[in-house]
């Protein structure tokens, strides 16, 4: 069965881009436009990996990460941000990987392959 990625980002363009690119890579992709929505999606369907934007209005990525790790401690989470500063944010240490956003998705795709491949 295909592994399923949940993409959480408040930017519509990026959600669309990630969806198409990761589907091309052979993964199933679910989308959530906010932290709150991502937690609902996680309750409803099986997810194998979360791709999480940090800076979102409302519940931000660090808070989502905290809740995810509380409830599904083995669910891998990749934190993504446009802004390298967050790399030093305390909370981001709890994620499984940290990727700085770029229009070149090579690094992000490789990270996803590393994590999901490992779990097979």
């Amino acid at each position, binding site marked *: 069965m295909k592994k399923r990625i949940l993409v959480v980002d408040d930017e519509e*363009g990026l959600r669309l*881009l990630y969806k198409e690119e990761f589907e091309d890579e052979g993964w199933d992709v679910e989308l959530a436009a906010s932290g709150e929505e991502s937690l609902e999606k996680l309750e409803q369907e099986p997810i194998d990996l979360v791709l999480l934007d940090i800076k979102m209005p409302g519940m931000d990525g660090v808070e989502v990460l905290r809740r995810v790790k509380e409830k599904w401690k083995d669910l891998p989470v990749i934190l993504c941000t446009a802004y390298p500063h967050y790399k030093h944010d305390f*909370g981001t240490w*709890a994620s499984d990987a940290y990727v700085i956003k*770029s229009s*070149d998705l090579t690094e992000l795709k490789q990270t996803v392959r590393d994590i999901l491949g490992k779990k097979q």
Partner: protein
Amino acid sequence: MEYDIIGEMAGLAAPGKSGVKLARAAGLLLKAFGFDQCCIYVYGKSGFALKGHSGKGARAVSYGPSEGAPGLGRGKRAALELYKLEAGEGSWRGVEDRGLKGFRYALVQPLEAGGEFHGVIYLKSIERKRPGAEDRRRLRKAALQLTLVIKYAEIEKELESAKEELKEARAALKDSERLITLGDMAAALAHEIKNPLISIGGFAARLGKHLGPDVPGAQYLERIFVEVARLEKVMDGAFRFIKDSSLDLKPEDMNAIAEEAIRPFEEDLASGGIELRKDLHQGRLPVLADREQLKIAFDNLIANAIQSMEKGGVLTMTTALSGQYVLATVADTGAGIEPDAIDKIFNPFFTTKRNGTGLGLTITRTIVARHKGSIKVESRAGAGAAFIIMLPHAAAEGQAQRQ
């Protein structure tokens, strides 16, 4: 000997509170010229304000710009003399001034300098009197001195309010600086510009993939992709004033790092009644490490050890060589870890402390793992805990690579 009223007036020009000075001036004038009441009015936007007075029945009467005797004196240069011929409620010959009630003679001396009118000295007498020419000359001179005192006070006040304004402006500037720091700007730029850029570049790349390289115009898409990548690089570069946290691995001595890590805690240990024991391997323990990061890994272990020994105890820092590994142990004689918690302590956000973050051990384990090492814990509830960091021995690793 004649009383030196002019010298006294000049003395008032020294810095000080102008209200106090003018009250004092009124007293001095009263004494110098033998009147029963002296009021000093300073002329401003809303007319005459009583700024100092002395003597019999002086009340805080204020006058409009053209009111009463001070109003008559406005704009004049010479003193104005007012008197009644008969005692009692008789006529002041058209001058209406409730301040004159009970007096028979008054002198209004304008306070004027360089054609600028600043107010009046208003002297009143119960008895009929007429100051001689010498007295009037002295009064004029005293008035000139007093005018300078008032001018000085005004300048001082303006200076004061200018200073105040400057202070407020500075504070406002600081506030606005606080509102928009460079970091906030960068974060906003990152979000508002970089995200759309990634969409543009990402979709250009996708379009290029769909159309293939042989379609006319494919090179335009390539151009878009390349330029976007360049812009992103410029933005990332601008953010890089915040140092990247990737590991900076160098040959280090585990003993030195352990020593350095414990040093900042020595005061805490002493004040917490905790004895520090060091049992360090003799000789260097070479590891490939990012010194600062590894120190953070130790920091978290030491902090936890101290927090577990609220009533004091012993903290032991041990380093050793074991086969191809370098070991460093932080052990305490504190509360220990409950059996059902021990599997969770490395989980992010797991904490049993009221103000805990539950990230200390997560960070430590992450750092150790990034050094290709591992961390173990040994503990029994009530009998303390020991955390053991294992890193590859640098020399041993070198040999392994050569084989």
